[in-house]
């Protein structure tokens, strides 16, 4: 092997990589927040009595879960492009990831609500709480705890998926790396650095979620 590793360009580009990491984190958070909200709505829609809402939610959930995330991204990019809607790659990625997350989270919420026995609602109601009060103060805090772990995993999963952005021209961490390496042709060095950054972001996110969980659920 007569290849000489050259790390200098990577070090020089490090500030740009860190800046791109912020884009990665930002896209992850925005997609996750939208995805969570949409996922909760999908869960309610799917368990509602309105068949059209149920149908719409089911299609969304099943497509999100049973096709590749990359397919969903292409659908938002090429599909919307084909009907003349050209959107910015940032928004395309957010839409695709939020779509994907919503589908997975809807299922997670279903599991979470199912895990809370109906007797909890009954006892709350027997104390005179309204349905909404019982949900807010008794059921949902428990659901939050039940879905916390899968939600953490989903968040990290979304963060890793933002790397698909490089395939549609988004300059998040992977996209930026590709851009930089194409100027220097040091693919291995650049992507190795990027891999390390992703690893660190994933661990930091995990730590953050653990800390929040510790604050929220301690003692229980």
């Amino acid at each position, binding site marked *: 092997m007569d290849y000489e590793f050259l790390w200098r360009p990577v070090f020089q580009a490090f500030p740009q990589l860190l800046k791109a990491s912020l884009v990665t984190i930002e896209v992850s958070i925005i997609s996750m927040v939208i995805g969570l909200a949409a996922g909760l709505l999908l869960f309610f829609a799917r368990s509602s009595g309105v068949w059209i809402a149920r149908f719409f939610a089911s299609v969304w959930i099943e497509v999100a879960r*049973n096709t590749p995330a990359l*397919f969903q991204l292409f*659908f938002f990019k090429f599909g919307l492009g084909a009907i003349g809607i050209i959107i910015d790659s940032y928004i395309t990625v957010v839409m695709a990831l939020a779509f994907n997350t919503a589908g997975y989270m809807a299922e997670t919420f279903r599991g979470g609500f199912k895990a809370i026995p109906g007797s909890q609602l009954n006892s709350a109601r027997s104390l005179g709480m309204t349905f909404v009060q019982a949900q807010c103060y008794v059921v949902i805090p428990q659901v939050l705890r039940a879905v916390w772990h899968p939600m953490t995993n989903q968040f990290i999963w979304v963060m*890793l998926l933002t790397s698909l952005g490089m395939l549609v021209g988004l300059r998040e961490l992977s996209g930026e790396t590709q851009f930089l390496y194409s100027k220097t042709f040091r693919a291995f060095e650049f*992507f190795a650095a990027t891999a390390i950054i*992703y690893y660190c972001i994933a661990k930091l996110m995990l730590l953050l979620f653990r800390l929040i969980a510790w604050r929220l659920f301690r003692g229980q």
Partner: protein
Amino acid sequence: MAIDVFSELQPKDLLFLGEAALRTLEISLTAIGIGSAFGVVFGWMMSEGNRFVTFIINAILDIFRSVPLIIQLILFDSFISIAGYPLPAFVSGTIVLSVYTAALVANVARGGVEAVPASLRKASRSLGLSYWQDLRYIVWPVGLRAVFPSWIGVALSVVKDSALVSVIGYVELLKASQILITRTQDTFVILTIAGLFYFALSYPISKASDYIERRWNQ
């Protein structure tokens, strides 16, 4: 005759898509097979080994779960070309996907071994079964039952994630679709075909797995 840059979707294009779909199946099934075998071994080592072994294996496998697959693929691909042993895209894709699968399956397998109550294993050993017999006749069937649905979930996600192997030049289904979209501009037809293929594969299997899980949990 001028070269037809944009042209209608033709029958041979469908064949092209079909072949690409087969390539998707080929690479993902290979990776699921190899990755699951290794994953089970790693999972077993993590649940039965001492703390140090568990920690090391887990830390290593965790890397593959904490770095985007697409980066793993590019990194491996550029590494082997630096090293001077360029491999066909199928081979390098399979290697990376298999390692990734093993990392996911290891956790599932570990859960499976740990799902077997210690008292059950004590009981089987007290009947005179050897360690390996206990593994083969008690831990494997009981643990498999506990985590089979999760394993199906991992396998299906590997099928979907195999779409990323296109970044190192393996023309699987999504890459083929992208090529055709660029040429024919028949976006919706092509995307629908590709989407339906994944859906038709994944949806029935995941529903069946839910059903089995519910049956077993009764």
